[in-house]
């Protein structure tokens, strides 16, 4: 088994690049909000220094926006850091809930992202031994497909179940028929195969199950 993710593999590199680009876009949005709020604050203070009456509420809103956006920036950077470190080890014990949560957040930066309801597993068991980066890639690809199938006003549901053979089943439901495209694509199949995961699509195309084996050996 390789000890690193093979970035000569274009699919891996493309995914890494795509996610980082959307993170940088999000960070730029955050900075744009901070920049405008700070600019407005400056304009208001200048007006006050000229003796003009300014509503205190406006100043409060501006500073509150700055504080909230800085917090949003920190959260985004934390997610970016977590994603970047997912290439550190090709095989490790992974909390599937954390992977899904991270991918929901990162895919949420896409302009066509729809709403998601994520149900935490009742049994609490959610650990698998797999390649975290490839599992992320698989979940992200599925989320992108799901978003496109319901549109920005739609809502998809995700749940995680533990199967009797120990594998984890990530269930995507509530999928729609908008912009219908074949799923899984060849690329998605390849990613699934590399970690020994299986993709099952419901006959009506409105649900997808991803079965991730408890142990993915020699997968990368």
């Amino acid at each position, binding site marked *: 088994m390789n000890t690193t993710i093979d970035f000569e593999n274009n699919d891996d590199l493309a995914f890494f690049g795509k996610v980082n680009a959307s993170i940088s876009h999000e960070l730029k949005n955050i900075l*744009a909000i901070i920049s405008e*709020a700070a600019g*407005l604050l400056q*304009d208001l203070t200048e007006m006050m220094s000229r003796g003009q009456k300014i509503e205190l509420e406006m100043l409060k809103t501006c500073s509150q*926006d700055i504080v909230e956006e800085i917090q949003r920036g920190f959260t985004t950077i934390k997610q970016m850091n977590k994603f970047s470190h997912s290439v550190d080890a090709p095989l490790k014990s992974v909390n599937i809930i954390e992977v899904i949560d991270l991918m929901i957040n990162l895919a949420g930066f896409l302009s066509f992202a729809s709403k998601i309801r994520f149900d935490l597993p009742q049994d609490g068991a959610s650990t698998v031994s797999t390649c975290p980066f490839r599992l992320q890639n698989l979940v992200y690809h599925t989320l992108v497909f799901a978003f496109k199938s319901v549109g920005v*006003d739609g809502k998809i549901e995700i749940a995680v179940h533990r199967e009797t053979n120990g594998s984890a089943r990530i269930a995507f439901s509530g999928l729609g028929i908008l912009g219908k495209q074949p799923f899984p694509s060849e690329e998605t199949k390849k990613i699934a195969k590399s970690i020994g995961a299986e993709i099952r699509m419901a006959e009506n195309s409105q649900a997808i199950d991803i079965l991730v084996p408890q142990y993915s050996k020699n997968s990368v």
Partner: protein
Amino acid sequence: MSNENKIKLLMVDDEVKFLESISKRLALKGFDVIAASNGEEAIASAENDFFDVAVVDFQMPGMDGAQVLKTLKERHQYLEIIMLTGHATVDSAVECTKLGAFKFLEKPYDFENLVKTIQEAYEARLKKKFEHNQKRMDEIQKLSISSSPLGLLRALARLDDKEK
């Protein structure tokens, strides 16, 4: 200054906080600003109100900036539109230029530069309107000699139709 004398601006961005702050700043600079947080809202606002200039975010969920630009330009050909983008690419800039955008600015931009660009866009709109009026006068002159009063009215209606 009364609102009648102000440049009427349509500001379109899905980042609500950004939209609120920039709208307030532009209002403090003397613009009459109406904010819309998505493409559909922007198009509806332009149908119900009169605008000199629109500033539109390129990347928005649902109807994206390019679609908004195209629709607004089709329906209000003298409205000048400035596109804002998080990450400018040559392709997106070319696309917007082809669709008739006045300018393409990348975020974060210099606020004073945005103000200047809006003023330039407004001047471009005035110039186009002046040219239209000039054309209208020429048409009246020509038709007053050769056409019936009804023909003259019809020709003017055709010209005015273009200036929505």
